């Protein structure tokens, strides 16, 4: 009787292990950081893409409106696919787009903007990637929605698509 119970216990244990590993096969092994809590925009000073002048975060986000911070680079292929959607979003009067040019060559970045259009009300240079880390980003492209209280309320990793544009429209309504 005791042996049977032991065998039963071992079988249950093996089935348990099998289920755990089997379920694990379906899980993605890439981690996507989520905004666990809403936090305010970081305090920083950044160089302007066009004028080379330095602006503080207070000055950049001074208007009482929604802001979208988009991290982009001319070498980033997915940035090209999302660019027409950013152009579309820029037509919306109730939000302002701020571009963060990530570790890019300035001439290439200017060519990119000339070729595809400029959806941003201001572009900031982030040559060292430090500003992006301050926003909690880990790559390009990434998009953040900032509400009127200057809090980062949503974060989209990777290129935005039409569904995300709809979500953004709903949020800023």
């Amino acid at each position, binding site marked *: 009787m005791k042996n049977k119970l032991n065998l039963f216990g071992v079988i249950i244990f093996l089935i348990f292990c099998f289920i755990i590993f089997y379920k694990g096969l379906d899980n993605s*092994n*890439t*981690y996507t*950081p*989520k905004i*666990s809590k809403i*936090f305010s925009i970081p305090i920083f000073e950044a160089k302007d893409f066009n004028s080379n002048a330095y602006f503080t975060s207070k000055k950049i986000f001074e208007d009482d409106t929604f802001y979208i911070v988009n991290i982009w680079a001319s070498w980033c292929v997915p940035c090209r696919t999302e660019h027409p959607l950013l152009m579309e979003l820029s037509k919306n009067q109730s939000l302002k787009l701020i571009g963060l040019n990530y*570790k890019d060559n300035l001439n290439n970045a200017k060519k990119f903007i000339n070729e595809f259009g400029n959806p941003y009300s201001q572009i900031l240079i982030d040559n*060292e*990637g*430090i500003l*992006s*880390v*301050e*926003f*909690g980003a*880990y*790559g390009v492209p990434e998009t953040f929605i900032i509400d009127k209280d200057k809090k980062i309320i949503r974060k989209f990793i990777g290129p935005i698509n039409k569904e995300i544009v709809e979500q953004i429209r709903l949020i800023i309504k």
Partner: protein
Amino acid sequence: MKILKVFISVFLLIGFLELKSEENNSELKSEILKNIRCLICQGQSVYDSESEFASSIKLIVDRKINKGLSEDEIYHFLREKYGDWVIYDPQLNKNTYILWLLPLLIFLFGGAIIYKKTSKKNE
């Protein structure tokens, strides 16, 4: 001559102290970077990674150390931005208490079984 000797001694002492502090900062930096997970090259620490993300984090950690921030303050900054996952050594909180307490419970349970078996044998 005496003044010159004193001046050289002070100069050498300052140089030595600066060198020592740089060495300490570099050790602290390595220690911190080895404990930060690279989020885009999983399985590697920021210390081992050459990715764009890792190079930015290395720069930030370097600047924070030079600003005089402690190891815990740097971890706190990164946790705020990326969550607990970014640090290899997890803190004890409501999400990780099972992780911390399970080995202890297993140890106590195993100890109790061994104690029971040995006391039975002695009887």
